């Protein structure tokens, strides 16, 4: 018997070679995501943006319903729990949030509902499903998660320590500790806007140390991600060669 549900699942998931329906659906969804972001590039809505909002939200709503309907296939087990588990999965939450902006069309005066329009940015996460490269990057980030968290903790500790030092050494330069934290972050990332510059010798010395440490610490995650990415790429190549 023709399994309609299974076919719906095959179409809404990323396409396989030779599946014309799934490929056409993927292209439609990718276009809907990109076009759905256009209103965020404009200062004011116009009749076209309203049409875009209605069309994209309807498409995303149908996509969401189809994905919930086929959740048992996605989760790999046929039970009511599969639907509940799917509804609370990160991708399903992003799918739901991408539909929310349509509410703002019906209640245009509300400030909170205007903020709901910002939920459009979540739509870009829907693209993750359709890009193999993005899936590889997501896998890479998952693999080096512990190391990245360790570096992040190191950076946060360093920012706090240097902010506390400069806050004590240059009391006239900073009104609040938040200003010192801002200066420490800008220095360690080697951005250096120059809006806050230390005046004392000790302050300038700490700035120099921050800049040097920043170069070393900020470069660490880049190296880790690159190494893991190259590893993942070589694994994929080996898999195809075998």
């Amino acid at each position: 018997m023709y399994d309609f549900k299974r076919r719906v699942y095959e179409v809404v998931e990323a396409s396989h070679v030779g599946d014309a329906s799934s490929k056409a659906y993927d292209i439609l969804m990718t276009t809907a995501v990109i076009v759905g972001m256009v209103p965020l590039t404009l200062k004011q809505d116009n009749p076209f943006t309203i049409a875009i909002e209605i069309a994209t939200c309807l498409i995303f709503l149908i996509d969401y319903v189809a994905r919930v309907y086929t959740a048992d296939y996605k989760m790999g087990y046929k039970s009511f729990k599969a639907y509940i588990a799917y509804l609370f999965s990160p991708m399903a939450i992003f799918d739901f949030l991408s539909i929310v902006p349509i509410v703002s069309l019906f209640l245009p005066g509300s400030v909170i509902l205007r903020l709901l329009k910002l939920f459009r940015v979540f739509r870009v996460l829907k693209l993750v499903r359709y890009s193999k490269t993005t899936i590889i990057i997501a896998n890479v980030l998952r693999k080096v998660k512990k190391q990245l968290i360790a570096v992040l903790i190191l950076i946060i500790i360093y920012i706090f320590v240097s902010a506390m030092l400069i806050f004590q050494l240059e009391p006239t330069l900073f009104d609040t500790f938040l200003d010192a934290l801002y200066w420490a972050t800008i220095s360690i990332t080697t951005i250096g806007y120059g809006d806050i510059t230390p005046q004392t010798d000790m302050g300038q010395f700490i700035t120099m140390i921050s800049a040097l440490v920043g170069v070393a610490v900020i470069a660490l995650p880049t190296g880790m991600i690159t190494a893991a990415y190259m590893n993942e790429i070589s694994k994929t190549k080996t898999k195809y060669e075998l």
Partner: protein
Amino acid sequence: MGKKDNKNVLIHDDGTIVDNKSTQTLIFVVLCRILTVCLALLGLAAFIKGNF
């Protein structure tokens, strides 16, 4: 157990084979492409009207 009949395929008296699944796929693909083009045009129109 015997092999199930494929009810999606209709064989006419003159030998012409009409596969329902192929027709449904074609309709779905054409609909998706039309929607894609319409959306792309809407996006372009909105961007031009809003920025120029």
